[in-house]
């Protein structure tokens, strides 16, 4: 029984971490990368074995290693749960983690702290695996904090830069706010269920009626935790800032794995969430709002990684929208495909940045298509996948979300469709600005342009392949084929009696398809004109031509109308949102809380005058107040 050996999965990265941490600085880069990659490879192989065994038996198993925390009646085991959901996450984490580790060995090759980097990455893998493998909420929380810590370490990896450390701090503190909610949620769960083991909690959840205040409170607190980790409004501004870290880190932590922990948590506790319709409604609204606002902000960003970061926030919003309508397996489907194409996009962006000697501003790129053909090709696939190009993975998962939301709430559906137009716009803008047109960087950069080494491009190719074919996991209902992922995940909803089976109508399915294809075509056309061709326009003097020619030449001024009526306002909104909502409002609140605390501190410290006289007076006053209890007690009798 291989499942008994499940502890090997997190053990390998832990060993990798220990070895690299002890040896960093002393060993060669090759050995550091062999240890780093090897440990993840071993763990990936173990996951494959686990997967094969599970698909053979279909039995979820809990493997308890030992009693971990014992305090009175509370016994929390150090135990692992292997079921469909865990395996789904494990495959993503170790599979994509492996590719990103391999990629990193090329990307970080020039870095001094190579061993340290791999040590951190392995530590992250370990924590993330604990997060998804644990069979109770405390284990999940341990992993949850662990990934937060690693993300902090890795964002601040290039610690020589002040701004980077500031970003790391912000990520840490915002995450702590979320963690606080999560922890309080766990305490509430323990109080109401008397246990934190998934099995006990979910099987006894059926004793609660829907909308029970305790369940609503628990789910709201858990959702606050998810907000922090998965960057939802209002706890999302740390994610774009987190792009200060090395690009493979952004790909692994801030796109493929860690940020989806919140979704994992909600899917894991789907029984509880289904009992709290209020929470679900809030999740839907926040998910849609996040998706939309961050997509709008992404429109005007010029830093290639920032665009991708906001895009990640937006896609996470999609996933939350799916959770909000109880389409749990749909959310997991999007988690999976998103992991493929967003990792691909980040790694591709990393390849571009690598080629541009560290330049991240897209204004100084352009025309890289010829110099970086492989990167271009894979990025193209990633972009098409995320924009929902027919038959690529993103197409299926995104449409599934749209369909689920449509049957629930039309307004939210429309907002999500608008968002998908916006996301197509900013992604194509990124692609065109980077790879099309003329090169706009310095000569030195141009001279230095080169395709990345194979160790970096092979992961890109594999991810591109996955981005293309990932849709097979969840072919739509219309095809008559079984939804592989949904069937696979079915066992985790066994305790949940409140999910409504819903089969989308054929007409709706087709309508959504046509809608997304049409918007993609239109957006593709305009963005291509605006960003790929714009500079080649030599501005010929056409004022002397006939009215009809001019109308025709100018495509009946559709562009201008589009430009003045839509593009300008949207871009204006975008920059306003970025400046005011993001930086002023959200960050303002976070900083404001700090200011209030500091103000309080400055008041409190003035009491500490250094004069014993005052200290003694306060002490005696304290004792006198204490004795008042006696007075009250005996007066009242």
């Amino acid at each position, binding site marked *: 029984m291989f499942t008994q050996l499940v502890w090997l999965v997190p053990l390998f990265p832990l060993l990798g971490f220990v070895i690299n941490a002890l040896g960093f*600085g002393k060993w060669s880069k090759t050995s550091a990368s062999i240890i780093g990659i090897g440990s993840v490879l071993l763990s990936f192989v173990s996951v494959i074995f686990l997967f094969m065994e599970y698909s053979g038996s279909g039995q979820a198993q809990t493997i308890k290693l*030992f*009693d*971990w*925390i*014992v*305090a*009175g009646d*509370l016994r929390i085991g150090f135990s692992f749960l292997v079921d469909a959901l865990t395996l789904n996450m494990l495959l993503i984490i170790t599979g994509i983690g492996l590719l990103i580790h391999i990629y990193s060995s090329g990307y970080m090759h020039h870095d001094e702290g190579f061993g340290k980097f791999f040590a951190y990455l392995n530590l992250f893998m370990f924590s993330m695996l604990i997060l998804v493998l644990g069979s109770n909420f405390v284990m999940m*929380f*341990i992993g949850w*904090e*662990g990934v937060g*810590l690693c993300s902090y370490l890795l964002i*601040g990896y290039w*610690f*020589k830069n*002040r701004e980077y*450390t500031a970003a*790391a*701090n912000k990520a*840490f*503190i915002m995450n*702590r*706010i979320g*963690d*606080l909610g999560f*922890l*309080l949620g766990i*305490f509430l769960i*323990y*109080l109401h269920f008397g246990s934190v083991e998934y099995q006990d909690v979910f099987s006894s959840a059926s004793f609660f009626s829907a909308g029970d205040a305790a369940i609503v409170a628990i789910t709201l607190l858990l959702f606050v935790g998810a907000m922090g980790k998965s960057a939802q409004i209002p706890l999302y501004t740390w994610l774009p800032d987190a792009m200060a870290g090395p690009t493979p880190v952004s790909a692994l932590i801030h796109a493929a794995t860690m940020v989806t922990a919140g979704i994992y948590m909600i899917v894991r506790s789907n029984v509880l969430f289904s009992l709290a319709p209020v929470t679900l409604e809030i999740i839907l609204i926040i998910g849609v709002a996040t998706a939309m606002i961050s997509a709008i902000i992404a429109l005007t960003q010029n830093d290639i990684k920032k665009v991708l970061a906001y895009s990640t926030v937006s896609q996470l919003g999609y996933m939350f929208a799916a959770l909000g309508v109880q389409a749990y397996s749909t959310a997991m489907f999007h988690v999976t495909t998103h992991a493929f194409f967003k990792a691909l996009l980040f790694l591709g962006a990393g390849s571009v940045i690598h080629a541009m000697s560290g330049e991240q501003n897209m204004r100084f790129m352009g025309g890289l298509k010829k110099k970086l053909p492989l990167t271009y090709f894979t990025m193209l696939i990633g972009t098409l996948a995320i924009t929902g190009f027919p038959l690529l993975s993103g197409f299926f998962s995104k449409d599934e979300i749209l369909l689920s939301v449509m049957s629930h709430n039309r307004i939210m559906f429309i907002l999500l469709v608008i968002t998908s137009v916006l996301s197509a716009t900013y992604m194509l803008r990124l692609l065109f600005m980077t790879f099309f047109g003329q090169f706009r960087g310095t000569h030195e950069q141009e001279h230095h342009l080169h395709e990345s080494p194979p160790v970096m491009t092979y992961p890109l190719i594999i991810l591109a392949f996955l981005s293309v074919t990932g849709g097979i996991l969840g072919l739509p209902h219309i095809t008559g084929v079984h939804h592989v992922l949904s069937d696979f995940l079915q066992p985790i909803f066994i305790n949940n009696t409140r999910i409504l089976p819903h089969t989308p109508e054929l007409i709706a399915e087709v309508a959504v398809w046509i809608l997304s294809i049409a918007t993609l075509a239109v957006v593709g056309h305009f963005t291509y004109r605006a960003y790929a061709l714009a500079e080649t326009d030599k501005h010929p003097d056409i004022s002397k031509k006939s009215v009809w020619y001019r109308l025709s030449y100018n495509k009946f001024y559709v562009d201008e109308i589009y430009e003045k009526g839509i593009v300008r306002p949207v871009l204006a909104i975008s920059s306003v949102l970025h400046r005011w909502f993001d930086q002023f409002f959200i960050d303002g609140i976070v900083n404001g809380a*700090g200011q209030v*605390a*500091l103000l*309080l*501190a*400055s008041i*409190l*410290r003035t*009491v*500490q005058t*250094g004069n*014993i006289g*005052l*200290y*003694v007076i*306060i*002490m005696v*006053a*304290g*004792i006198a107040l*204490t*004795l008042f*209890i*006696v007075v009250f*007690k*005996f007066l009242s009798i």
Partner: protein
Amino acid sequence: MNVLLTLSIAATLALFFGVLRLKNLATPVIVIGLLASLVFNAMEWNNTTSIFNDMMLYNNFTVAFASVGLFITLILVLFYSELSAKHEFHLPEILAIMLFGTVGGIVLLSFRNMVMLFLGIEILSLSYYVLAGIRKQNVYSNEASLKYFLMGAFSSGFLLMGIALIYGVTASLNLNEIAGYVNNAKGIVPPYFLVGVLLILSALLFKVAAAPFHFWTPDVYDGAPTLITALMSSVGKLYSFGAFVLLFNSCFIPLIADWEVILWIAALLSMSVGNITALYQKSVKRMLAYSSIAHAGYMLLALVGINNLTSGSVLFYALAYALASVVSFVVLYIVRDKKGSYDIASFNGLAQKNRMLAVVFTISMLSLTGIPLTAGFFGKFYIFNSALQSGYYWLTAFAVINSFIGAYYYLKPVVAMFASKSDEEITMPALSNSLLILLGILIILIGALPGFISGVI
């Protein structure tokens, strides 16, 4: 009993070696004494002995708390004799006084009579008054010593008044008889008795540095020599809390309705005042001093709803806090020795110059913050669990929020270590280096496998 004798004999021998100019012998004697008492202490496990006609009772509770206290004292003695030896003319005397303080501490962990409570507190405090002022030429050290002494003596007055009042009502100083009286009274006691309990409570709150009796703490911790501060904040707190748990657990539980409100107000105030004021501090030493008030607040949380989990969770927390606090003060001492200032800026670039120091310091800060997989997390976890069991939901929620504030200031020196550059080399003596590594590993190990400690008592 053997433990107390061994410690006293070793300390007295060290004093003689100091007088006889055999200073090099003093440290070995002290270390051997501590090791021997650790062994004697361990031998008392599951072997409850009554000493001096029930004046003291050496049981598993005592053994568990005393092992932590002796171990931490041993570590600090080793640090002190290696790091401070070059500045110190009176090393044998200082180490001897540390041991005398430990004697007082162990009395506090085993008393069954109010006389011994008073004696224990006085032996512990008198040693600390002297240690705080051990730098005779340093005006800060002088001031710390005087403040500690005056306020400590003042609070002893209240303690004694409380003991006298209780004696007046019960005609006994023996804890078992007092407990018998309280149990018979069924919650209705004369006002004198209640005043006595509350005065003792106030005096103990003073000793554990809880607000609003905390004012001496920042000044004394700041002014005292850094390694002495480490001693006071780690084991000093452990002994005082041990005495607190012992006394209230054995005598005053039936009166809980009358004193719990004071405890939770004190816990609330300590957490808030400690954490918020720490935010403002530029000096790491003062920041740690304020944060120690906050930690006292967390530990009070376990006492508020006193139950069968209390002593275990207090022990775990005290151990976790002691380990992290010793590491942080020792690293602070080394940094200050090099840079001449306690400011956060002194930590700039430490990660480049001495990675081991930086890593160990980071671990201790994470533990103080309460990040999982460090001892500090489970310390908080057990404390919160204990408070939740007694139904203090809001207070626990408040404590959790407070513990998140802590992250903000604990990470400041960590960021400084990793974010900036520095040119000065920092080298470490071999023994201290390996001790620091040992402590760092212990923090992680206890954080990874907390069950082994928490199951003890």
